[in-house]
């Protein structure tokens, strides 16, 4: 990390600690990405054993969160980091909570997918869900890329894309209502699918949160609960929002 290299008072061991914990977060992110991809595939392909595997593997995500959390507490207690290093640790502690929640949502999707696999598949073969899943997967992937590269601009671009997910979510909701009105027998299945779509939408929100932490980490600015346009203007002007 460039910023850390500029501070001669910080020991090499400390840098290594920070790098390691950062890499652990990204490894956890990678695992969550994989869980997400698997859970959506399980639903779309009607693969019940894959869905079960996703639900079963969620404990790995939880374990990773606990161990990263401990590592962060240890660094805070023993190294008392300041400035950008402190922001990094704070951002990590927040990011792993979001990742863990994403993991829970994936578990939910996996579980529902394994249940829906036994039922009759709809005519559209979950095309809409597949598309939303792809959008959300890209969002999570790019958010974690921005985290790995400490790229605030990319993070901002990704955060802006969360809107696409919300629009897609609305569209599927409207479509589902039509399905249920046309064929009341499908209500149960459509409700289950709605849970999946809802979970995907939540994952998109968590990805957006991670982008906010990246911006916080790089610029030291808290941009939560602020409209994206205001954030952009503030970052351009160099003033705090």
């Amino acid at each position, binding site marked *: 990390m460039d910023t850390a290299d500029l501070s001669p008072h910080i020991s090499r061991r400390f840098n290594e600690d920070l790098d390691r914990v950062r890499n652990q977060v*990204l*490894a956890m992110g*990678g695992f969550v990405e*994989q869980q997400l991809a698997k859970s959506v595939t399980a639903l779309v392909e009607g693969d019940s*054993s894959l869905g079960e*595997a996703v639900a079963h593997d969620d404990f790995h995500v939880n374990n990773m969160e606990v161990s990263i959390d401990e590592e962060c507490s240890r660094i805070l207690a023993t190294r008392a980091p300041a400035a950008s290093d402190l922001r990094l640790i704070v951002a990590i502690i927040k990011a792993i909570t979001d990742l863990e929640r994403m993991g829970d949502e994936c578990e939910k999707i996996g579980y*529902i997918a394994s249940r829906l696999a036994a039922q009759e598949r709809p005519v559209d073969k979950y095309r809409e869900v597949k598309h939303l899943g792809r959008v959300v997967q890209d969002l999570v992937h790019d958010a974690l890329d921005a985290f790995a*590269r400490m790229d605030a601009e990319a993070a901002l671009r990704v955060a802006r894309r969360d809107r696409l997910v919300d629009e897609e979510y609305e569209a599927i909701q409207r479509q589902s209502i039509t399905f249920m009105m046309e064929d009341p027998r499908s209500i*149960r299945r459509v409700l289950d699918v709605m*849970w999946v779509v809802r979970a995907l939408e939540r994952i998109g929100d968590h990805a957006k949160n991670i982008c906010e932490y990246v911006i916080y980490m790089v610029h030291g600015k808290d941009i939560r609960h602020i409209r994206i346009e205001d954030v952009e203007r503030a970052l351009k002007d160099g003033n705090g929002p």
Partner: protein
Amino acid sequence: MGWTIGHPWWGLTGALAIVLTQQWVKLHQLDHWLRNRNRRAPPDAGGLWGDVVSQVSRLHRRKQFHKQRLLSLFRELRRSSATMPDGVVVLNTQHEILWFNRKAGELLGLRRKTDHGIALASLLRLPQFGRYLEKGDFSSALRIQPRIGDAVWIEFQGMPYGEGQLVLLVRDVTRQAQLETMRKDFVANASHELRSPLTVIAGYLETLSLDDGVPADLRLPIIEMRRQSERMTAIIADLLELSRLEASDEQVIGSPIDITALLTLIAKDLAANNGTRHGVEVRIESGDGLMADAGLVHSAFWNLAENAAKYTPAGGTITLRWWTDEDGGHLSVIDTGPGISAEHLPRLTERFYRVDPGRARDTGGSGLGLAIVRHVLQRHGGELAITSEEGRGSIFTCHFPPSRVARQSFALNGDSRYADGVGA
């Protein structure tokens, strides 16, 4: 000069001062030139200073020459590496990116400007790739699908050098993966298509073999045809089972299995098939169960037990032994057959591999049994070990990792959290 004015010491001091000033000016010029030597011509200083200046400028020219040569060599290397069909990434001891060529950038989505010094695993974030780097065993390549659902497959081959640095070859193997899938699909489809006509043939042969109206000279051929059609049916059933097993690399989760009951059942079936040709002994040394898919594990254990029965002469003993320790759970099938010579052991689990082609066909096996066993174990994170001594017998052992051992108190509760469609 001092004597002429009567003050020799003053004269001497004055002369020294002049000489010192001259030297100082030259030293200063030299220093100034050394600092800006790329832009300025060397100062024109005679004598010893001149020698020093020419020495330094010669060294400088030589260094400049080497630098240019290295730089142009480096540029050439970089340009030529860009034309390489495979990606190359050079990693330092922390597995951070030192350098990568254009193809690697394309395949892995790396950026030339920003990604140097970042840990490669942080950018790729593929759990399997992280494990591959961490394990540090680069004897084999790693083939993965970067995005599940995409058709793209990428192969990584690490080559360590120096003190823990690593050159990583990255290849796009999508085409090979597709061919592999096509081959698997073909075997599965062909077996499936062969099954229906074969069922008809086997059905008629069965009827004919029971029909008293068939001339006596046709009776033996019909019985033989029936036997062979049964064998074909068995081979096709095994091929189908193998393709099902191969369809996924995903680890099977399964549920806890009571090994005691399973082995007792296998021993009973074995006795029923073979009469009293051999003694069958079941040795249960652990009350622990196994977390596995019951159907797959039964098929694997049954294959091993049946093999042992086939190759053990009458009067021999077959032992089924189950035990657990800190390395996991183990099941051995021990026979007192003729044994297998060492040269065959590594190839034994290959499809249709025969130790003794003439003899093995008589036993009616499909030649796929051990391949099935190996695949079942792979899907459970286990492996098959074979030891054998000619004339004494063979031991086939299935090793399962500790995570697969289900302690007796271990029981799964029905998970009803999402049963109402309501999330946590």
